[in-house]
């Protein structure tokens, strides 16, 4: 709130201490309530969109944070060892006491697959199966008071007896079982039948789960059950490289920090330090699970908020232009009144002050309303996002719950207020300057001064543009690569403007800027700079602003051409005359329109380009393979013998490696996948960049032969938000086994297409075995088969004991693309708000235009101009500007999407597809909307009575 007060202080001061200015400002603001309402509506947009993006971010943060309650509860850190080291860990942990720790709890876990069997016997089939489930053993009595808050643990009552299981909802639902029913758990080649003692909800400790799923498929079993399943597994033999029959049991100690579910995480640093000291030398890993989750939640929220904010900026920009337009019109209308005030001795500064204070009144009201509107918009976006989430595989999607913090509302309010005030003050200053020049008539002198000033500014802007461009290319910084040359063009134009022919200079500079706007992004991507959403915002501005300037410069030619085509119909001539005569205003309206149409076209085209990319993505992602199978473990021989299978490439896969890039030193849990020579038996997945290797194959061969190379995609280590390459070719990162603590540094040698299959980083099977000496296990396979869909169904039914779960690569790609497309759809609806603003803006501008021209309309009517011709003229005027805006926006949108297809962007080579239907609909709807917004003002113009209008003096 403090920034809002600071922003407002000057205006409050003016209004409080200058009675004359106060009266003027307040009278003007309240004189025409309907128009003041329009101004407020125009100014609230910024606040609304900013607030909405904050709210969207808050919602995601809180939705992810909710996982802290549903899967960790009191658990803040988890210490993991293999069962062989369990006794060692217990000794070290004995007598643990630290002011920041309020409890520790032993948990044993085992990854299992579960199923309900249709009949007994070894050739039974699964009625229903949950291939990824977990058995847990813990002391229910201790667990229920762990961390001191029984509710947060989610565990109470008696623990399971021998042969019983306390089952979580998700697992019960998946297996269609209730208390009293039985199911079977499979692991390591063994199986155990369990009777459901009761079904409990997924809360806290009960939901303890470390997979990427949001739901926990947990079954709590009596102590000893896991040992029974693991019987016969020789851990020592594993260490020597022998493949196990599945992943191993783990022994963990969960630590609860002092404080609640979220607040406890504050002590993570101290507690981790204490634990590290205690466990020194032990093969173990201390994982601050709660803190990691909370960090991820915050980051996810922030990045989504930024994405929405950046995209919303397009609409906000349109809103700013609208505001400038309205304020300029207000100032024009009051010109004589203001001139009179000046003549009576009002200083120019006071003039600005009055006008700005009036604007502040609007801004403060607008920001307050905008905050509420933004909350509503945020709500709608969240609603839409919820729909998307529920459409995908529910396992992986965080349930969305609407949430916002007071500080978000405050931030939205303040940013919106700042935008509105800055616009209003800027416009006030420029309009009052204009008045003074025409009033005092010292045009000559001010022009000379302006000229020098202009040259200085021009050189400054040009030089900084040049510096940015050079620096940008050197640092591979996409934003500066984009902005630099555009600023250079602006600087040159400003500098040369008074010296050379205005038109030529403008045409050349603006033309260059437009070309750069279209070509800059692919060039930036080409030199290896990663484009962020901001880059596209800059691109939009670079395309739209110079285009509008160019069009304005040639507006007369356009108008005359049009007049020639349509014949010299009077309404037409009149309709075109105003936009041609008021070039600046027209340019503002045009820019306001085209920026929004541009981004909407852009997103529509990109979206359909993604959609049309399914086949290509599938090919890139799968190469010659068409199915990915997870099975615990993979039995290559058996799979090869399966009908229809032509190739099997086993992959040593882990979902939870601890990965730390050398550059950021921040550890992230990320999957890693190790391949061997068999991966190259068919065409491997496509690499988007083979680095220094001449062919795809050479890069793969180098990877497989070495044990310190890696291949990653652009999303490596950054799951949330837009792809932002954390590591590039040549960069190094460390991979550590969370259980054994073994680690190794890998170097990125190539880049792969987007990892839609959750493989994580690629390395060699050799490297995986070195890093994960006891757990490395081929648990995933790339399979080439003649009938993928049939294979998936068959293998899941056959290998349910191994937890077989398979997807066709095309199926996964389609699912991911569908979500992507829906996300684009959501963004598009968010942006449509900008379009609504553009359209409403045209309405507002026409309302003002009618008011301004009432007397002229009166004259026309007196001269014999028919009432309907008057309304036609207004409609033509609005239609003309809208049509130009739409054409610029659509053309630029198409062009910049097309340039993206010239090179590899977003890790894929796209083909240019124009969603003709969508684009035509967009154009049509925008046009119809604009004309509809003009109906009101046009009608009221037609109703103007000449006798009344002619009496108007202003």
């Amino acid at each position, binding site marked *: 709130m403090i920034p809002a007060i600071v922003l407002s202080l000057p205006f409050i001061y003016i209004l409080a201490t200058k009675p004359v200015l106060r009266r003027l400002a307040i009278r003007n603001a309240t004189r025409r309530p309907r128009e003041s309402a329009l101004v407020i509506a125009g100014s609230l947009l910024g606040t609304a969109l900013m607030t909405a993006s904050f709210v969207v971010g808050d919602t995601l943060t809180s939705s992810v944070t909710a996982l802290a309650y549903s899967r960790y509860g009191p658990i803040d850190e988890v210490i993991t060892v293999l069962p062989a080291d369990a006794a060692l860990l217990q000794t070290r942990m004995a007598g643990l006491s630290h002011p920041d720790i309020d409890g520790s709890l032993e948990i044993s876990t085992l990854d299992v697959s579960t199923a309900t069997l249709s009949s007994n016997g070894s050739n039974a089939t699964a009625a229903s199966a949950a291939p990824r489930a977990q058995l847990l053993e813990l002391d229910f009595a201790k667990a229920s008071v762990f961390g001191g808050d029984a509710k947060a643990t989610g565990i109470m009552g008696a623990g399971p007896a021998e042969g019983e299981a306390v089952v979580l909802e998700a697992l019960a639902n998946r297996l269609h079982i209730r208390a009293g029913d039985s199911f079977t758990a499979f692991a390591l080649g063994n199986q155990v039948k369990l009777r459901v003692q009761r079904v409990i909800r997924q809360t806290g400790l009960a939901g303890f789960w470390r997979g990427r799923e949001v739901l926990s498929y947990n079954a709590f079993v009596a102590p000893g059950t896991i040992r029974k399943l693991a019987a016969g597994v020789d851990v020592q033999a594993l260490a020597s490289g022998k493949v196990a029959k599945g992943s191993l049991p783990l022994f963990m100690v969960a630590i609860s920090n002092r404080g609640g579910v979220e607040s406890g995480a504050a002590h993570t640093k101290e507690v981790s330090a204490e634990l590290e000291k205690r466990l020194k030398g032990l093969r173990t890993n201390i994982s601050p699970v709660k803190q990691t989750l909370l960090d991820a939640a915050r980051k996810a929220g922030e990045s989504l908020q930024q994405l929405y904010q950046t995209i919303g900026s397009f609409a906000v920009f349109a809103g700013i232009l609208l505001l400038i337009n309205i304020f300029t019109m207000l100032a024009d209308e009051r010109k004589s009144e203001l001139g009179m005030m000046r003549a009576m001795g009002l200083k120019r500064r006071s003039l600005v002050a009055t006008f700005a204070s009036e604007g502040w009144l609007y801004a403060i009201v607008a920001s307050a309303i905008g905050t509420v509107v933004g909350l509503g918009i945020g709500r709608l976006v969240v609603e839409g996002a919820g729909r998307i989430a529920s459409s995908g595989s529910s396992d992986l999607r965080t349930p969305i719950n609407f949430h916002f913090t007071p500080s978000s509302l405050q931030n939205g309010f303040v940013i919106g207020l700042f935008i509105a005030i800055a616009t209003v003050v800027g416009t006030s200053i420029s309009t009052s300057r204009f008045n003074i020049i025409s009033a005092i008539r010292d045009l000559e002198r001010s022009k000379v001064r302006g000229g020098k000033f202009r040259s200085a500014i021009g050189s400054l802007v040009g030089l900084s543009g040049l510096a940015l461009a050079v620096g940008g290319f050197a640092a591979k910084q996409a934003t500066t690569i984009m902005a630099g040359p555009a600023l250079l063009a602006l600087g040159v134009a400003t500098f040369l403007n008074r010296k050379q022919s205005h038109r030529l200079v403008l045409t050349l500079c603006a033309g260059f800027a437009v070309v750069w706007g279209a070509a800059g992004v692919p060039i930036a991507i080409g030199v290896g700079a990663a484009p962020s959403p901001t880059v596209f915002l800059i691109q939009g501005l670079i395309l739209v602003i110079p285009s509008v300037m160019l069009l304005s410069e040639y507006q007369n030619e356009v108008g005359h051409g049009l007049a020639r085509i349509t014949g*010299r119909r009077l309404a037409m001539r009149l309709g075109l005359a105003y936009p041609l005569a008021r070039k600046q205003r027209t340019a503002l309206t045009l820019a306001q329109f085209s920026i929004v149409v541009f981004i909407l076209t852009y997103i529509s085209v990109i979206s359909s380009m993604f959609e049309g990319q399914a086949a290509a993505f599938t090919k890139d992602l799968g190469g010659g393979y068409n199915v990915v199978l997870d099975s615990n473990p993979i039995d290559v021989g058996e799979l090869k013998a399966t009908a229809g299978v032509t190739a099997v490439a086993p992959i040593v896969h882990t979902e939870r490696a601890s990965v730390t890039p050398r550059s950021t030193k921040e550890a992230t849990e990320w999957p890693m996948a190790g391949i061997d020579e068999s991966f190259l038996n068919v065409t491997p997945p496509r690499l988007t960049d083979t680095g220094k290797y001449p062919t795809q194959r050479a890069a793969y061969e180098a990877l497989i032969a070495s044990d310190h190379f890696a291949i990653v995609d652009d999303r490596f280590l950054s799951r949330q938000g837009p792809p932002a390459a954390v590591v590039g070719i040549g960069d190094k990162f460390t991979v550590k086994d969370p259980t054994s603590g073994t680690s190794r540094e890998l170097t990125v040698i190539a880049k792969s297409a987007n990892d839609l299959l959750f493989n994580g980083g690629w390395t060699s099977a050799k490297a995986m075995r070195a890093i994960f000496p006891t757990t490395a296990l081929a648990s995933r396979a790339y399979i080439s088969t003649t009938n993928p869909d049939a294979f998936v169904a068959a293998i899941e039914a056959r290998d349910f004991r191994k937890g077989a779960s398979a997807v066709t690569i095309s199926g996964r790609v389609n699912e991911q693309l569908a979500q992507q497309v829906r996300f684009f759809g959501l963004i598009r609806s968010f942006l449509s708000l900008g379009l609504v603003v553009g359209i409403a803006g045209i309405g507002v501008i026409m309302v003002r235009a009618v008011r301004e021209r009432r007397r002229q309309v009166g*004259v026309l009517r007196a001269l*014999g101009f*028919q009432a309907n011709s008057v309304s036609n003229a207004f409609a033509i005027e609005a239609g003309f500007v809208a049509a130009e805006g739409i054409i610029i926006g659509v053309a630029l949108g198409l062009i910049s999407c097309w340039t993206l297809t010239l090179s590899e962007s977003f890790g894929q080579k796209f083909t240019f597809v124009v969603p003709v239907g969508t684009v035509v609909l967009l154009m049509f709807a925008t046009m119809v909307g604009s004309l509809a917004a003009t109906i009101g003002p046009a009608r009221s113009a037609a109703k103007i009575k000449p*006798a009344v209008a002619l009496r108007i003096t202003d």
Partner: protein
Amino acid sequence: MSEILVATGVRKVYRTGAEELEALRSVDFSVTEGEWVSIMGPSGSGKTTLLNCLSGLDEIDGGTVSIDGRTLHSMTDAERTSHRAHAMGFIFQAYNLIPVFNAVENVELPLLLAGVDAKTARARATETLDRVGLGARLKNRPTELSGGEQQRVTVARALAGRPKVVWADEPTGALDSETANVVMQLLGELNRTDGLTLIVVTHDEEVGRSAQRLVSMRDGRIVSDESLVVGAS
């Protein structure tokens, strides 16, 4: 000569909220073709109102107005508008040109409205502007013209369509006396040579007296109606 305009018992009441103001109280008034009538009277006496009502720019609350034998207020708005386009010209106080049109475009406006083809309209507009002494300023926008020049454009606009009747409301109000003279002489000449009917509201005694007939108004009534010796001033 025949009567071009006959108004009988014309009443006009302005209503603002509950208040009523009777601006014209049963006015009888007629004009013969080719006549030049001045209307004078104190401010607020109803001169502009009379002009608006008789020309059909405004509705009336009683009485009838017939022009060329047609009852004005029984026509639809569109008919009246078209009638204006064909048969009437208007000159108001300054500042009533269309600012986004240049001089010649402003002048050809009524011609185009009357359905004259573009080429002829342009030619006639140019000719008319020439006649008012603005032949050299055809392409200037109103803001680039002086007040007197603007008013001459207005006169040209009123005359270009060769209307039968020209209504002028204080045509010289914003002009210095010399420019005012030029404008009035122009109008007088057209009245004499082309038989133009002129109805001019003015505060200027001299302008008023250059007409053939002087009508005085007070409180919404015509209080005197005198014939003047032609060319008295």
